[in-house]
């Protein structure tokens, strides 16, 4: 079963890459871009048929490795 995870920086944590992307977009005449936050996306193939169990495993992975909870939030989608 494939579980998808999105990791993003927490609100309030400076995202210099997102800022640079936003400024570039503004410079390309996408004037109405007000903010960009960059994140990471994972597709994790788990050998597990029960979706609930698979998601709970991935939740553990997020806490232990995929996200650093000091600055990042994660969402299992």
């Amino acid at each position, binding site marked *: 079963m494939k579980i998808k995870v999105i990791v993003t920086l927490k609100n309030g944590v*400076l995202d*210099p*890459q997102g800022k*640079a992307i936003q400024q570039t977009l503004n410079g390309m005449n996408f004037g109405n871009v007000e903010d960009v936050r960059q994140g990471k996306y994972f597709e994790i193939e788990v050998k597990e048929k029960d979706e609930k169990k698979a998601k709970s495993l991935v939740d553990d992975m997020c806490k232990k*490795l995929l996200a*650093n909870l*000091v*600055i990042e939030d994660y969402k299992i989608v």
Partner: protein
Amino acid sequence: MRSSVIIFPGSNCDRDMDVALKKFGFKNQMVWHNDQSIPKSDLIVLPGGFSYGDYLRCGSIASKSKIIKSVIDFANSGGLVLGICNGFQILTETGLLNGILQQNKFLNFICSNVYVKVKDKQNKYFKDLKKELLELHIAHNEGNYFCSDDELKSLEDNSQIAVTYCGVDGTENETTNPNGAIKNIAGIFNKNKNVLGMMPHPERMIDKYLSGEDGSLFFKNILDNFK
């Protein structure tokens, strides 16, 4: 004093560290990350570099490698653990040190000499150090130290801030902060001050003909405090 330098795939300051430690009389040995245990040591060093190509987050993969359990046990039993640059990043990822090293504020790789101010001398690394400011070298893309407000307060309350970036006259402000680190933090301790992580490289300042000698003071001081 016996020391061990851990080598991860992608470490590149391990041999510089070995040379520096031996120059000042440490009995140093190199330890591969996949080993189960560390030979008897008084100091363990996690060197600089780009362990695992900085994949995921700097230091995150190395912080789960086989040898790390022994490093954590050693640290928790009071042993001296020093992480330089990527080593500092690994220590934050293991949880031995608070916070995280984020990408530099202006998105640039910085390679230059800097001055750092020694903020605390009640520890085995800096006790009785003759200088207040050290000229050291930094070379990193992710040295922008960040932690939560609560963690920062606790670092300040327990004097866990080890060194901060400053000017040649000791000024600490935005212009003497190379990477955007909060409070100009260049290095921190754990609560017991046996674990030290810092971005600057003392091992690159051990020869007056090459760079400078403030790194020599650092290593000699550890030896003096150990005796």
